[in-house]
């Protein structure tokens, strides 16, 4: 089959690789009908996530048709059309029982690697380095899905791929980012990053009843989408205005009640602090550029919440701990526990309360994946989200 493989920093290539096989009795094999490139794939592309190997199949946002099932699979049958959550969860361990699916204790065969880096291991993820399991991803014609009775959700034929594909990651991820903000009527939420996850965080904050949502980015086309499609009430272009000042003005001097970091490890900025982080990163003195996170912590109102759904991999520098502690902030974060959001969010889509396809700007073929990565990374042609299909 054809698959999009990581070949090194800034290099992916569509190669012919063997078809996946059933390796565990709980597996299913899907014929992928739609798959997408995630912002977090760019961290892999840019070589920020350790333990990638030449030839790894990428992709953790995908959906398709079941073509084969293992002996133990009970809920799925051949022919079912399903969307698959990007974290792999067994459904049996204590974490899964507590619905903390992205922290499943049994799905990462390389848990020892993650323990060495992070202290304890989270769940395995599709197509996301060997630290997170070494599972082949879904930017391919076929993909193996472990624990097929636990993750995949069947989707009705009345909904197009475009409308349900993002249940695999970015819609639930944005939703969890908003949910962690304890939104109540009257709340003001600020969202750093108007990429795909940011758009869904904005839309979800509105769904959850936030009164105002402020989007922060540097690309006008993304801020326009945030206002017109996702429901942001205000936007700040950080290349034109000082974010801290602008947020103060927009919130009567209080600061937002909650701040969502939908940027993660590769924030852009300008001026000295950006040069500082680029330099430290180049010298391997820190692994990330936490500019958005620092800004979010400083901007948040006293006693507010900072919700982190942007992906980080290692260590950051100049973390404003004094601001967080003295002003009584709460910080929350995590890889999304996608499984627990599938049904409620599918419900929102079915009732027409949201159509997640609004983020799609480019539709390409799987064999155009290398081109699509470049386009998405360079934000050329007003690129927001690329969907690939066979």
């Amino acid at each position: 089959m054809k698959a999009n493989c990581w070949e090194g920093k800034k290099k992916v290539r569509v190669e012919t690789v063997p078809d996946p096989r059933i390796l565990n009795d709980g597996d299913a094999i899907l014929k992928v009908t739609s798959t997408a490139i995630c912002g977090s794939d760019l961290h892999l592309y840019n070589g920020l996530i350790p333990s990638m190997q030449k030839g790894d199949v990428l992709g953790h946002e995908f959906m398709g048709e079941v073509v084969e099932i293992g002996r133990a699979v009970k809920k799925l049958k051949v022919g079912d059309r399903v969307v698959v959550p990007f974290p792999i969860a067994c459904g049996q361990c204590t974490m899964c029982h507590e619905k903390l699916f992205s922290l499943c204790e049994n799905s990462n065969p390389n848990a020892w690697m993650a323990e060495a880096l992070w202290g304890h291991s989270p769940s395995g993820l599709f197509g996301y380095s060997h630290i997170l399991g070494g599972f082949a991803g879904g930017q391919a014609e076929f993909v193996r899905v472990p624990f097929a009775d636990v993750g995949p959700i069947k989707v009705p034929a009345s909904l197009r791929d475009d409308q349900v594909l993002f249940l695999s990651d970015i819609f639930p991820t944005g939703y969890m980012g908003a949910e962690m903000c304890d939104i109540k009527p009257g709340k003001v939420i600020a969202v750093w990053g108007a990429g795909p996850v940011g758009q869904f965080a904005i839309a979800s904050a509105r769904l959850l009843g936030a009164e105002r949502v402020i989007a922060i980015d540097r690309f006008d086309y993304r801020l326009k989408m945030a206002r017109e499609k996702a429901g942001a009430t205000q936007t700040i272009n950080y290349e034109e205005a000082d974010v801290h000042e602008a947020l103060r003005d927009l919130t009567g001097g209080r600061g937002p009640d909650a701040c969502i970091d939908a940027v993660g490890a590769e924030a852009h900025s300008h001026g000295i602090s950006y040069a500082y982080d680029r330099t430290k990163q180049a010298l391997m003195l820190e692994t990330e550029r936490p500019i958005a996170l620092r800004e979010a912590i400083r901007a948040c109102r006293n006693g507010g919440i900072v919700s982190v759904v942007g992906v980080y991999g290692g260590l950051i520098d100049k973390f404003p701990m004094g601001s967080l502690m003295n002003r009584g902030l709460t910080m929350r974060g995590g890889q999304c526990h996608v499984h627990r959001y599938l049904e409620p969010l599918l419900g929102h889509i079915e009732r027409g309360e949201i159509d997640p396809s609004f983020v799609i700007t480019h539709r390409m073929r799987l064999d155009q994946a290398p081109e699509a990565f470049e386009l998405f990374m360079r934000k050329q042609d007003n690129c927001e989200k690329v969907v690939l299909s066979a």
Partner: protein
Amino acid sequence: MEARNDQTRNDQSKLRSPALGGANGAALTVSTRPNGEPRQPAQPRRTARASNPWARGLGWFSIGLGAAELLAPATLARLIGVRDTSRNRNVLRALGTREVAAGVGLLLPRRPGRLLWSRVAGDVVDLALLGGALAFDRRTKSNRAALALAAVAGVTALDTWASLRRQDEPDDDSAALTRATARRDKRKNARVPVQAVVTIQRPATEIYAFWRDFTNLARFMTHVRSVDVKDRLRSHWSTSVTGRDTLEWDAVITDDRPDHLIAWRSVADADFDHAGEVRFVPAPGGRGTEVHLKMNVLPPAGALGKAVGKLLHRVPEEVIGADLKRLKQLLETGEITRSDASIHKAPHPARPSGDDEQSDV
């Protein structure tokens, strides 16, 4: 709160079963040592670095200075006021080699005591050479050389002090102690306790029963090929570390408390001489059972065995930790989780593997 957790951990580490600790461990079994030598409690794990921070500091200093002498003898010569001649450069290079060797020796885990004295001896040589240059070579820049001489004298004092201090420290690794003890004691000192723990969302009864049927162990222990149960207490183990080698031994159960503990040890002439125990402790908050696995590995006798043993010692804790994770997967999900990369023994890209690659599955 944290202090209390630490306390609990300490208390647990103090708990030693008879099988690992006291002389009554052999109660259930045939004595495996001709002289009935009781097993000693597991010794605290040794750190892999020299324990004395002074020795470590001086070690790094030696390497730094040695590197400078080796790589930039001319610059160094000018710095200390000695003439930059090819002879002086060669002397500096020779001294650099000695410094690097002494430094590496000091950073290795064993016996920095003697090596610290080697630094003192080296300092004396340095003092003599510098003094000679100052006294007999008129082209030496005397104020720079005098400064260098003072610096070396200071370092000599520090080295002497560290060496003397080192001698006062009780150290079961020290040369004197090793020489003074019998060969068997040496083997006993080389015994390395390894342990691992995992929490499994299953009742202790179930996990105990699964483990007690030793044939199940081959299902989740990477290196165990098969276990033949001979009778209620005895079993025969066949393992392989590389896939081509074979290590075999007979084991005998030394303690067996249903739902709580199983302890065993290898019988005489085992390829893998060890004692082990697994304890099943209810986890708080209805989270199932904590499985504590502890093993004391005794490397084979003889120099070769010791060398092999040293290599083996580094592996087991990771190996048995991963083994326990697989046991958890097996008991909680019914299977051992495989990924596209993990079905290969060697590093392999995360992509499906073809038929030709399946041999090592």
